């Protein structure tokens, strides 16, 4: 039964990568969110050479997803191509595109659910939460050679969720005010009943049994109903990291993909002990800390029974995985992350600096939109 709903786990090339970015469609007149996704896709003349451009739940969102790539540089090329394609089509329709985990001042009741059975079903099931779900995330897929490996990585990556949240945090403003969070986006995700962490499971067999249990209870019908921070994706043969805010520039999105790939290689190579059951007790607290304070978070260590600085532990982690990054050919993409840990200069800080400079959120979105579209290409392609 569960096998039917989940499908077979499709093995994929080890550590292959795929990236999805949910982006904001904004009016070029006042930089509020605008409705335009369906018309934009309807008028698009694009052959899919860099991956897909598709609808998301509301008309003010659009999702770009790269093709499966063996290397981070492949992801970089796809994301640059997708960004430029989207940019030229949006320009023809007088629509701006913007990164960031939340739109700083949009009024959620004005959002329109996209046409389609799936989106309509979500709106019927979740009501206003579906419109409030107009938040924008980056999902990173890492290829796994087996279903059991995917489950192990799902558990192992759970410990590092705060690092991905802090490094991608780009949603400090909600409803026109500073939320004091670095990433306020995940508060919108937390409202969904099946959000959170994957329970302590050791194998694909246990996962399918757990899913069958959820199915029998009438809670979940498919893998898409599980809004977990990290989840296996059987149809792609990947493990999917879902906690990142969409960064303000594709370079940061690429760097996060490099972190995911290097980290997975390091985890699979060193196989650290997981302490899954203990981690489950502190996971929500640690996630809150990362959302609220970003790199300044103090995380709870359920094994050493102490608090540790996320900034310090992340600096050590980035050093630890450097050798794996070198082997994968993406060490140069980790440099901006290392610098960010030192400088504390993430996207949330940049947005707050823009607000301090302009004094209004319309100009903040304008600046953010220009930043996403700023091309940082050289002859070898997009660079960190």
């Amino acid at each position: 039964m569960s096998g039917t709903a989940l499908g077979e786990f499709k093995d994929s090339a080890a550590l292959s990568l795929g990236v999805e970015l949910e982006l904001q469609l904004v009016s070029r007149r006042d930089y509020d969110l605008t409705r335009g996704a369906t018309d934009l896709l309807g008028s698009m003349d694009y052959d899919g050479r860099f991956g897909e451009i598709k609808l998301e739940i509301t008309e003010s969102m659009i999702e770009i997803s790269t093709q499966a790539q063996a290397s981070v540089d492949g992801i970089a090329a796809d994301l640059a191509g997708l960004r430029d394609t989207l940019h030229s089509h949006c320009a023809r329709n007088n629509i701006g595109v913007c990164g960031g985990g939340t739109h700083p001042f949009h009024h959620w009741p004005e959002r329109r659910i996209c046409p389609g059975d799936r989106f309509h079903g979500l709106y019927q099931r979740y009501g206003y939460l579906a419109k409030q779900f107009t938040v924008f995330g980056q999902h990173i897929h890492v290829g796994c050679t087996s279903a059991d490996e995917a489950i192990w990585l799902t558990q192992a990556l759970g410990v590092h969720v705060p690092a991905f949240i802090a490094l991608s945090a780009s949603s400090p403003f909600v409803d026109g005010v500073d939320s004091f969070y670095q990433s306020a986006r995940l508060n919108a995700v937390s409202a969904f009943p099946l959000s959170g962490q994957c329970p302590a499971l050791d194998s694909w067999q246990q996962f399918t049994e757990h899913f069958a249990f959820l199915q029998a209870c009438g809670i979940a019908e498919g893998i898409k109903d599980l809004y977990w921070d990290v989840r296996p994706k059987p149809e792609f043969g990947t493990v999917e990291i879902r906690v990142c805010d969409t960064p303000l520039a594709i370079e940061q999105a690429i760097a996060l993909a490099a972190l995911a790939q290097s980290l997975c290689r390091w985890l699979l190579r060193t196989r650290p002990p997981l302490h899954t059951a203990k981690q489950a007790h502190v996971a929500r607290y640690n996630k809150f800390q990362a959302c609220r304070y970003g790199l300044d978070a103090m995380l709870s260590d359920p094994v050493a029974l102490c608090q540790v600085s996320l900034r310090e532990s992340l600096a050590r982690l980035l050093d630890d995985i450097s050798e794996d990054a070198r082997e994968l050919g993406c060490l140069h993409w980790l440099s901006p992350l290392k610098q960010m840990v030192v400088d504390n200069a993430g996207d949330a800080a940049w947005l707050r600096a823009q607000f301090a400079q302009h004094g209004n959120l319309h100009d903040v979105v304008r600046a953010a939109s220009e930043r996403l579209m700023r091309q940082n290409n050289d002859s070898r392609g997009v660079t960190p």
Partner: protein
Amino acid sequence: MIESLIAPLRAVWESLIERLLFLPPFPESIDALALFSLLLVTGLLMGEWLHAHARWPKVIGYVLAGILFGPSLLGWIGVETLAQARPIADAALGLLMMEVGRRLDLSWLRRNPELLRSTLADIGLSFALIFVFALWLVGLSPAWAAATAAVTMASAPAVVLLTVEESRAQGQVTERIILHTAISSAASFVAFAFVLGVVHAELSEDWLNAVVHPIWVVTGALLVGGLGSWLALRIARALPKRSLAQVFVLVACALLAVGIARMLAVPVFLTLFLMGVLLAAFDRRQTLRYTELPDGHWLLAIVLFVIVGASLPWQEFTWLAGLQALGLLLVRAAAKAAALAWSGGSLPLPKRLLVGMGIQPLSATAVFMAYELASLYPEVGRSALTLPLFAAAMMELAGPALCRLALRRSGECENEAGERGGIA
């Protein structure tokens, strides 16, 4: 009619005035504020009633109130009353025209050349077909045929803006309706200025006026609009963006421009449209870019459309004139639909035709332009411009409905359940 109603009151008043020293003479005309209030409430009630019971756009109700109480039917709003209310209408139209000018985004045409093609086709075809219709089928002289084409070629900015606002529409069809309306209005104003000279030349052979009047109108509007926008940007720069103070500065500068334009006999609609265009073009620091007109502009808009409704010459209606106006509207509709069918800038054909439907309104600016032209040579102008005035009169009622239908068919309106409209 109104005289017979107040006659007994006047008689009582005049009998008392000898004994009650404090009584002023019986008021011969209604106070301006009272007039404003009456026009507002009448229009508002009619608009709200039609909207609630028939789901019609409220603008239609405002116009119907004007027609009902105007000189054509009940006569409660007389010709003198209309003249008295003109400053309010000018202020309302001015603010709406400024808003349309601010929304004229020429950079979009640069990014999407197909749009440039469709707007040029709309302008060219509309003017040419209406001119030919008025010249050959109606039999107007070339000057008045050109005047008719200049007055009726464009969509109605005020109606379009209010309908979009009332429907809370958002999307590609909506944005393109606004763009087409703004650009065709600009083209119509250029044609209007040119036609001024042509009318002078044909009717008086006075070459001085034929040359200087268009220059006066265009230069005057440009200078007054430029002064208004410069002043607004200059003062607003010192104030927080999107603050209430900035809104007041914007409105005050617009009203100043309206006042100066009236003093110099320069068309208010042209002056304020140019002020809006210049505001958007020179606002490099985004000083006023995000500052919106207050909801209060709906108050003025209601009065504007009541006055426009009352100004329509229904008392001069003949079946021939009606048929000719209907013919003009059909030719105009065909021109706009053909232009949009030919090229619409990356939008599928059904949606392009909806844009063509959405730009059908013909309203306040056309009526005001027609009266400006007619006032040059009243003895011939009024009868020569009966055609565009009747076309506007018909479209006053059909235009908002067509625009609203286009927005709804495109699926870009707010859901009916959540729809509150501009003033509800």
